């Protein structure tokens, strides 16, 4: 079979769809696994094999191939994929944009009141988009959007580091910089997350991938620890998800405590991202795709994806609401 020559095949099986790790350089869609994927240089011939799912494979290849087509713009030749990636990647800059006026005017009030909500929530959104790429590859077989994983990972790190830096300078907790960064358990967990994200940011480039070799993949699995620590951070921040009077993010004064609870939002988003990473679930999806019953996969996963969208929408709503206030330098502490 012609497709069996594709680089992603391990032991005659489509790499990554059987839950086993692929060799270095054979992207199976885990976050940041493939240098090619991370740098966006992967070509159609280097994609993970999908030979076991011929009909679907052909469809997906068409989308990826369509994205590879160049068009002329102002004397230059630009790939459709590049335009799509720029459009889809641009929102990652928005959290930093929201805080930029306060940075330019050195408005400590805005930083003190809303940097956690603007950059912290922005980092959470970027993390979820970064983690969303792998399940979408598993589901669709398309790979043209894989470079977004690296981009959103980098922006997640930038937002998180910006949040910690601003909080360390402007937060109201006692005990100086140390107290502001580690004076409470949830703040300490947030600080640990930022410390963990730094090596990922530093090594999130092709040169570091080449130098670290197989250790790069192991190092970048720290993203899963960060994901888990975010749960602990939110559990402690939100009083285990139970609203007590005005204590908790559910107290927005608009009568909707459930939708404002960050822990619920996190859980709604994480279920889809987690289940689609479980090897048995991936095996089942691969088997149905091989049988040509892709519709069954989509039908099964639809409620999970709907829940993800539901949770993500409210995080996004929070980001826009708080971010616009931060941009106007009239921070909201709701």
């Amino acid at each position, binding site marked *: *079979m012609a497709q069996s020559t594709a680089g992603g095949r391990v*032991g*005659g*099986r489509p790499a990554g769809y059987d839950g086993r790790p692929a060799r270095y350089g054979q992207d199976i869609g885990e976050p940041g696994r493939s240098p090619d994927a991370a740098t966006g240089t992967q070509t159609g011939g280097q994609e993970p094999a999908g*030979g*076991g799912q011929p009909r679907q494979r052909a469809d997906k290849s068409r989308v990826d191939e369509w994205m590879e087509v160049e068009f002329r713009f102002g004397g230059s030749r630009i790939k459709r994929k590049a335009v799509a990636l720029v459009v889809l990647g641009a929102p990652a800059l928005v959290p930093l944009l929201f805080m930029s006026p306060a940075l330019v005017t050195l*408005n*400590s*009030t805005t930083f*003190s*009141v809303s940097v956690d909500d603007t950059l912290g929530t922005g980092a959470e959104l970027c993390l979820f988009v970064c983690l969303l790429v792998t399940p979408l590859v598993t589901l669709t077989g398309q790979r043209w959007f894989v470079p977004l994983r690296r981009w959103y990972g980098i922006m997640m790190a930038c937002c998180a580091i910006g949040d910690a830096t601003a909080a360390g300078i*402007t937060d*109201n907790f006692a005990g100086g910089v140390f107290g502001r960064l580690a004076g409470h358990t949830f703040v300490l967990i947030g600080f640990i997350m930022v410390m963990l994200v730094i090596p990922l940011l530093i090594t999130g480039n092709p040169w570091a991938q080449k130098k670290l070799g197989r250790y790069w993949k192991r190092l970048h699995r720290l993203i899963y620890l960060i994901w888990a620590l975010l749960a602990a951070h939110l559990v402690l921040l939100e009083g285990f998800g139970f609203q007590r009077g*005005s204590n908790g993010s559910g*107290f927005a*004064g*608009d*009568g*909707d405590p*459930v*939708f404002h609870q960050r822990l619920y939002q996190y859980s*709604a988003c994480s*279920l*889809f991202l987690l*289940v689609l990473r*479980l*090897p*048995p*679930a*991936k*095996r*089942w*999806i*691969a*088997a149905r795709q*091989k*049988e040509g019953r892709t519709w069954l996969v989509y039908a*099964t*996963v*639809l*409620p*999970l994806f*709907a*829940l993800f969208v*539901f949770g993500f929408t409210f995080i996004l709503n929070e980001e826009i609401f708080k971010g616009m206030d931060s941009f*106007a*330098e*009239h*921070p*909201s*502490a*709701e």
Partner: protein
Amino acid sequence: MSQAHAPRAPEQTTAGRVILAASSCLAAVLVIAGLLYAAGTGQRHQAALAAAGCEPGLSPSGLPCTTAQMLASQYTAIMTPASQQLDADMAAYTASERHHLAAAEAALTAEVTAENTFDASLAGIEFPPAIAPMARALIRADQARAKLIAEQARSSSLARLRSFNHRVQAASAAVQAQMTLILKAIDTPPQAG
């Protein structure tokens, strides 16, 4: 078709099927519950506003109805960091007012900046009609104080610098009085605004 391409045996994918089916059912229940809950958002919002003594129907057109909690939250959000900054600047001024003119002037300049930031933030809050005049009076008193401190910061000697202290204290008392009024007013559930 090679053996490798044959569909997996059912037992190999049973666990995946169970995991996906269970999690999808859970997700479906949560989505439906969420949609049902979202359908009652309007009523809950009205109830929250009514509980806070705020009737949306009485709001001036184009202005949201602000609950007491929202107002208190917004006011505290700008008040707390501004107070901390001012305390730090005043402490820096007190430490250097007798022996270091440049440092004292720098502390006063920082104080003016903090006050202007506070005034700008305060002006951005949409206070209800009952409280809005108090907020405007507070901004006026604060600006008068900032102007006086700015003048003090331009002093050419330490003696001249300290000569402003009593006037600044009087201006601070005026600001404090307005702040007390606003805090008292916010404690009472406001009307539409």
